[in-house]
């Protein structure tokens, strides 16, 4: 399994091919559309992280010394970004998740989606993923 920064760098490289925001967003939307990221049965209030604008569902499972994440959103752009976050963090070791510096988001020009004031649920989702990394199961609903 490649480590967190390897995966981040790979995503950054992928994005460097795009000429403008359109191509970039088309790619994100494609990712959002293609991936089944979570079993429908988990899309319940137990797993929800509520943004004002879009909903996010997140489930974490421990497998040996690794944490796997499953997530979804009702908005496809949010879902596309989620799929990248899962690519980067899922299957990694808890400490690494907790300490991860997710620089790829800024590098690929999506920082705005993760502003604490964006209220799409993503900031809370990352917080939640890191909590899982710390072995804390407390659920933050935003």
């Amino acid at each position, binding site marked *: 399994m490649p480590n967190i920064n390897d995966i981040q760098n790979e995503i950054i490289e992928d994005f460097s091919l795009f000429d403008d*925001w*359109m191509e970039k*967003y*088309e790619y994100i939307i494609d990712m959002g559309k293609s991936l089944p990221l979570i079993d429908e049965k988990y899309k319940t209030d137990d797993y929800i992280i509520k943004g*004002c*604008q*879009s909903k996010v569902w997140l489930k974490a499972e421990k497998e040996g010394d690794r944490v796997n994440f499953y997530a979804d959103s009702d*908005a496809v*752009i*949010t879902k596309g970004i989620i799929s990248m976050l899962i690519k980067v963090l899922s299957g990694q070791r808890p400490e690494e998740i907790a300490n991860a510096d997710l620089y790829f988001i800024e590098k690929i020009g999506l920082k705005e989606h993760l502003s604490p004031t964006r209220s799409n649920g993503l900031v809370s989702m990352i917080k939640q993923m890191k909590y899982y990394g710390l072995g804390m199961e407390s659920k933050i609903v935003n």
Partner: protein
Amino acid sequence: MPAILKENSAIKFRAVREARGDFPILSTQMNGRPLVFLDSAASSQKPQFVIDAIDKYYREQNANVHRGVYSLSQLATDLFEQSREKVRAFINGQYSREVIFVRGATEGINLVAQSYGRKFFKPGGTIILSQLEHHSNIVPWQMIAEEKGLEIKVIPINKEGELQLDTFEQMLSEKVQMVAVNHISNALGTVNPVKEIVEMAHRFDVPVLIDGAQATLHGSIDVQEIGADFYVFSGHKMFGPTGIGVLWGKEELLNKMPPWHGGGEMIKTVSFEKTTFNELPFKFEAGTPNICGSIGLGAAVDYFSQFDPKEVVAYEKELLAYCTSGLEEVGGIRFVGTAKNKTSVVSFLLEGTHPYDVGIILDKLGIAVRTGHHCTQPLMDHYGIPGTIRASMAMYNNKEDIDRLIEGVRRAKMMLG
């Protein structure tokens, strides 16, 4: 006809099409493209005229009001009280002391709910709201209803988003202690028959609060003609500054209500043994008011009076029709709120997409629309949707703005479809 119109009938109005040039922000860019601002229902932009009034205030006129004997303080006080009078004329209230400056519509509603409600609401009574209300005209009533043991009933809407007055009529009884509905729905643009509603409620001696937050952007109001007991609105939604709004109420009712916030300005005498309260409007204006905000709001009223309200309404109707038919041509559009009488607000969904995704793509194209529940969750729940995309227009918008919107929606449809 509001007094302000009568007074201005001799004035030569400016053409509405000139308005756009008065708003500096409309010449800026967003994401590298000329800004198309279609979120005026959330907050309007400000004309240079209002910005100048604010600037002048801080550069030349600033001092605390009602306190100093020195000329600067007198000047600030005069400007502040003149703004109150301008607002009175704008809504055609009877006395300027019926105009209470608050932070915005929300605070105005809270004031009435807390002050009137705590004194006059009786356990077991009913408060009537409508399915169309903004959270600001729901939550304050829920809070006082819970405290005092009242029940909230809701005027239903038809699928066009119009209030069902026949049901409302059946809901009325002596048990009802307040009716609170908006003049214009922020989420759908429906213009409600507030005069009828007031008449119906008054047959049972029930007081009526009208939430006019969305009404004042489209021209002056006549509270006496409407006949309401309370009318609230926000300055920032009518070309004025943030942090200022108005509660207008009938003097008789306001006089009977206890003060709400305590502090400087709202007292006559204070001792630790006995404090006596000031008269209207000061009784309800504790502490230093938003002086500059009030003066800015007065300037917004003056700005309005440069235009013919009839022309404003006609122009906005034209934009509404143009936008609606343009979106229809895109295809796959579901309009939410199709009342016969509506303002320049278009709420819609693009089939198979989430409003948030559409909003993001429009943003990249320099187009500001609002997506989400518009602080009307009960209304969205009623329609079974998470929210809508809402384009709301003011007199500073033009057809090119709408063209850009339509083109943007097409693009979003292509990208997301």
